[in-house]
């Protein structure tokens, strides 16, 4: 098993320590607390038994043909990505505090930061946050710190889970206000935004493609925000950036995203990858670890964790954030994935997503009673209106046809009525989409 000690080892080690027994070593623990009763299995499982148990549990999950998106996306993960991240030299290393002994992981973080900057069109990126939601919340916090303002405007198209997380992050500070900019036809209502924006606004937080799948033109939003000294926080799916305009191009001050799309399994919610990037003037407000390139004493290139004066282990209660562990191995997956794709492969991947979703939208819109909710351009997901209860319909299709047709939106967007958010990524074929169409037709 995992502990190497034999009975003899233990006895001889205790003797070498000079302790008569193990109990001698823990006299500092009041004896009344020792050896409580644990209502836990008296027998452990051997590997054969444990494998059977885990196999049974895994089989307890039913994986339907799924068209769920909404912030996490079904993706093909290349074999080379899996092979690299399962190497023990990466998998079992710790945070690279001893730089000389951690050049591999440090260089990969540097390459990750570079890839994120290239993808998002931003100046600098950190080594990762927990997930897209925590990146988003930290970016809004930073924007508020920088501007000294507490009013946060956010577009109705921001992932509702990001907003939930943000509000939790600020739960202790009642002075913050969050104002939702309503959508018009699924995208930011510019007139409504103009009326809400003022010189007390810390930032405008947007997302494109937004939660409803629509691609938004953020440039005018950015210009309006700037006029009032408000910063622009933009969330964007990294794969969409293979095709779409970047946060850097439309003038974001902070750009964040959910990196799960870059070679990470869905795994019921994590671990994912919080992408975090910003303009260079905000570098020192960036939370989390950052790797920098430097030289060793012989003048040779090397990498270190840098700008650590922002961090908790140095600044303690004055730190920019409390983050310690991040998602280094997930960042490595993303780095390898992007290196495999290159600019051309990433473009093809984005096209495959956009193409699959376009085909799916066309097919579903041909069903009598089903229509596309919005007219605007979308990336890899879109909203359909259905004639009856969307949640019931989803359950019916799932039970009868083994297809998960998408996420019912009414709990999150009651104003949209009975709708489903349908997503198709590069994993979906024409046959899959025709099966979805058929399963909806049959169950309407």
């Amino acid at each position, binding site marked *: 098993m995992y*502990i190497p*000690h034999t009975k003899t080892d233990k006895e001889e080690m205790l003797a*070498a320590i000079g302790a008569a027994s193990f109990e001698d070593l*823990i006299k*500092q623990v009041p004896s009344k607390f020792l050896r409580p009763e644990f209502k836990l299995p*008296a027998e*452990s499982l051997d590997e054969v038994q444990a494998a059977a148990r*885990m196999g049974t549990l*895994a089989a307890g999950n*039913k*994986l339907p043909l799924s068209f769920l998106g*909404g912030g*996490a996306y079904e993706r093909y993960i290349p074999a080379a990505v899996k*092979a690299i991240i399962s*190497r023990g030299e990466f*998998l079992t*290393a*710790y945070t690279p505090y001893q730089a*000389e*002994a951690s050049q591999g*992981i440090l*260089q990969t973080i*540097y390459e990750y*930061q*570079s890839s994120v900057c290239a993808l998002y069109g931003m100046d600098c990126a950190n080594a990762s946050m927990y*997930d897209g939601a925590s990146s988003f919340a930290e970016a809004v916090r930073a924007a508020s710190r920088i501007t000294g303002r507490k009013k946060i405007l956010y577009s109705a198209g921001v992932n509702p*889970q990001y907003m*939930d997380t943000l509000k939790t992050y600020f*739960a202790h500070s009642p002075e913050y206000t969050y104002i939702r900019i309503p959508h018009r036809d699924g995208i930011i209502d510019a007139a409504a935004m103009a009326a809400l924006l003022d010189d007390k606004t810390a930032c405008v937080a947007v997302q494109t493609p937004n939660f409803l799948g629509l*691609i938004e033109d953020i440039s005018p939003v950015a210009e309006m925000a700037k006029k009032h000294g408000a910063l622009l926080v933009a969330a964007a799916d990294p794969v969409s950036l293979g*095709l*779409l305009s970047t946060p850097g*191009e439309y003038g974001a001050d902070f750009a964040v995203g959910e990196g799960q799309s870059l070679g990470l399994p869905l795994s019921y*919610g*994590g*671990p994912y990858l919080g992408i975090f990037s910003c303009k260079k003037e905000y570098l020192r407000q960036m939370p989390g*670890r950052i*790797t*920098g390139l430097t030289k*060793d004493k012989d003048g040779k290139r090397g990498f270190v964790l*840098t700008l650590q004066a922002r961090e*908790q282990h140095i600044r*303690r209660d004055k730190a920019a954030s*409390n983050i*310690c*562990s991040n*998602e*280094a191995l997930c960042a490595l997956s993303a780095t*390898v994935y992007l*290196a495999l*794709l*290159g*600019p051309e*492969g*990433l473009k093809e991947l984005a096209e495959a997503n956009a193409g*699959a979703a376009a085909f799916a939208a066309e097919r579903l819109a041909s069903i009598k009673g089903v229509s596309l909710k919005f007219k605007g351009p979308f*990336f890899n997901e879109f909203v359909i209106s259905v004639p009856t209860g969307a949640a019931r319909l989803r359950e019916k299709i*799932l039970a009868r046809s083994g297809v998960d047709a998408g996420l019912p939106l009414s709990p999150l967007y009651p104003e949209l009525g009975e709708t489903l958010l349908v997503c198709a990524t590069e994993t*979906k074929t*024409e046959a899959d989409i025709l099966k979805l169409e058929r399963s909806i037709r049959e169950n309407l």
Partner: protein
Amino acid sequence: MNSAQKTDNRLSIEKSVPGRRGLKVKNPLRARASVPPGLKRKTAPRLPELSEFDVVRHFTRLSRLNISLDTHFYPLGSCTMKYNPRFNEEAAALTGFAGLHPLAHDSSAQGTLELLHDFSARLCELCGMDAITLQPAAGAHSEFTGLLVAKAYFEAKKENRSEIIVPDSAHGTNPATASMMGFSTVNIPSGADGRLNVEDLKRHLGPKTAVLMLTVPNTLGIFESNIEEICRAAHAVGALVYMDGANFNALIGLVKPGDLGVDLMHLNMHKTFSTPHGGGGPGAGAIAVKKHLTPHLPAPTVKKEGTAYASNFGDARSIGKVKAFFGNTAVLVKAYAYMLAHSAEELGDIARCSIINANYVRSRLMDIYPSYSKEYCMHECVLTPGPDMTAKGLKTLDVAKRLLDYGFHAPTVYFPLIVHESIMIEPTETESRETLDEFIAAMRAVRDEGLADPQTLKDAPHTMPVKRLDEVQAARQPNLRW
């Protein structure tokens, strides 16, 4: 780490050749993609153009520039670098777990929900607590979640409490989290024996105190023997006691923290429960609480209804979400697989053997590296360079760097902050006596070598892919991307 690898330290982008391809995406539906030109990106991203083999070789070579647990002993204090069982990895990668979408219908997710439900119950039993959330993504994220829960508890009681008490031996994340939450931090100096002085604590406790955050055993590897009295004093003023469970490896299967009187605590799956650190993450955390805090836990948790499992979104008293979706579920699956491999008795062996190992190292080094504490330690010990080394100008950093040349990762150094030149060693239970003997011999050799020729240590490491790096230049002229 051989010389061949040292010669090639090019970045992937420097190996890039225009037109070279790794992955292609040929899905015929691509042809149907249409994005209005005005919404398209103007320039292609500057990513490397490499063949698949180029990529595999590039990253494989990089991996070999790392010290890792699989290749080296890693006695990092407070980090619990224990063996990461391969079975756990295989279990989490099963398609049924890995392929499950976080917004999947509960009826599609019964296997994962059952696992999380059973794991929650077992962890509560192990900790002597009443309820648990598995949503936090890491230790610091757990602390944040814990303080949110505490805040919600006091708000429900309409009490306004602004202070968090933290001993000076605490992890940096404790005060950083407190301040992130808008609390002020009150630092209490440790007593001469490394413990919290109860009388001193009582002077600081009052109606403003919200939470006392205590690491048990503390970062000096010492158990707070007065914990019962400490908890009683905190409760007497209406405050909560939070146990930082970073060092739970010393207690697992031996002591139930709930019995000590703590109200809430966190666990690190990537420490006590053997999930890999991955070069700095991902981890997974948990907050276990007593009954009075249960309603405030984040949502969702998992409940059992008849024979089926369901997500439980709690009620208005819940603090809400600290993370999108459920949590770092794949890490939790690994930790659960580890749990299955241990009976109650075997869980206790983890603590017992980790304590034996730490004391073994301590006892065989303290004649030349004096121990901070005169008592036996729990799962880790804090040593310092001896006066003879200090007289030669040798510092902890020099010892740490030279150890790399001997084939060992350095211990945690300069932490806890209260010990000058500290060397914090946590061997964990999975290291054999032979490995510890080799480490002890290396520590002794480093000292002898340093006394004879201090410069050898000052210039160390000598055999790593790079020598000591210029951190000042890195910070003054940040070069953070290609």
